[in-house]
Structure formats: C-alpha cells, structure tokens
C-alpha cells in the first residue's frame, strides 16, 4: 500500500490547529477576565 504521507500530515496538522486554537482562546479569555476582575466595579466609585 502507498504511504499516503499527505493524509498523515493532514491529520496531525488539523490536530495542531484545533488544539492550538483552543489553547489560544483559553489564554485570551483568561487574560480578559483577569483584566476585568482588576477593574474597579462601577458601583464602588466614590
């Protein structure tokens, strides 16, 4: 049977894109929430 390296790289490439994309999304969400939690709440303004 042919080696079909193209299929192998497509599968691994897809996995890297999906998992990397999800990880980046989590990092962005975490940064935004941390920034928001440090911001003073509007009700507490003098």
């Amino acid at each position: 049977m042919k080696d079909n390296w193209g299929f192998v790289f497509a599968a691994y490439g897809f996995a890297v894109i999906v998992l990397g994309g999800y990880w980046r999304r989590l990092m962005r969400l975490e940064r935004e929430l941390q920034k928001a939690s440090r911001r003073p709440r509007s009700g507490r303004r003098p």
Partner: protein
Amino acid sequence: VAALLAGLGMTFGIAPREVTQGNVQRIFYLHVPSVLTAYLAFSIVFVTSLGYLVTRNLAWDRWAGGAAEIGTIFTALTVISGAIWGKPTWGTWWTWDARLTSTAILFTTYLGYLLLRAVVEERERRARLAAVLGIIAALNMPIVHFSVLWWRALHQPPTLLTPAPAAVSGVITLVFAVNFVAFALLFVYLLAKRVRISRLADELLPG
C-alpha cells in the same frame, strides 16, 4: 509540551511502518488517544454531574462544563482523523457504520450539551439541566466502544481495551501509551485552565 513532543517524536521516529497499511497507520497514534481522552472527559462529566445534583455546589458544574467542552474537541479530532485515515484505507471518508454513527451521535449529543449551557442564562437552572443531560449523554460511551463487537461494522474491533491480550507489537503499544499519556496531561492542563476561567466568570457575573 514535553510529553506531546515525545509522543510526536516516537510516532514519526520510533514507531515502525505498518506492514499492510504503510505509514498512514501512524494516524492511529492520534486517533485512538483522542477517543480515549474523550472517554476520560465524558466520564468526568458524568461523575461531576452526579456530584452537582447531589450537592448543588456549582464547582461540580464548572468541572462538568469544562470537561464536556474539551471532550467534544477530542471527539471532533477522533472523527476527523478517522475520516482522513478512512479515505486511503477504506476508500471512503465516511460510512454509516455502527462505530462511526455512534461516535457522530456522541459528538452531536455533547454539542447539544454545550448549546444548552450557552442558551440557559440562569446559573442554577443551567447547571441542573446540564447535569441531567451530562448523565444521559454518558450512556452512549459503552455503545460507541462496543458497537464494533455488537454489530457487523467496517471499523475494526478494538485494538486495545479488549478482554483478550492486545494483538499489537510492544513498540506500537509503547508509542501509543506515550501519546495517550501526553493527551491525558494536555487534557488535565486544559481542564484546569477552563475551570479557572469559569470560576473567574462566575465571580464577575454571579447568577
């Protein structure tokens, strides 16, 4: 990251070229650890959903929501890598075989679970409904796993996690084990991060 790199290195450097399928069989080291990680994630959804219904503590719900989200991603990886593997070996990207169909049902069920979490705004109600669905959805996992034994299927029977000793070589089992450990560690890392984000969100937007 080190475990993932070790897994990749072993997949392409140490694992032997399979006799009948050739190098395309290397997709096995991505496909099977992905589905086992999804099983792990959905088992956590099951346990934490029960935990929420018993205690009504929202911390259980945060674990369930996070595990379901990541489990759904690993199920998508399973389906897509399986389709990519199927084309050169079976001659088709997709067939309505018992294993493929039950996995597609598993995937859509957890997509529905995530949709439910996204549309119900009231926090306690969302947790309660999601917990019930999280328990029901997990019942599909044994059907997915044993479908290839219960029905005549194009998909091969389980290579690992079978009552009989595994009929694969030691090197293949070792490379598979390293990849599975790497995926499980990645899952734990992503889950911890997802739960932390949910806790921060709950603190900022209570209710």
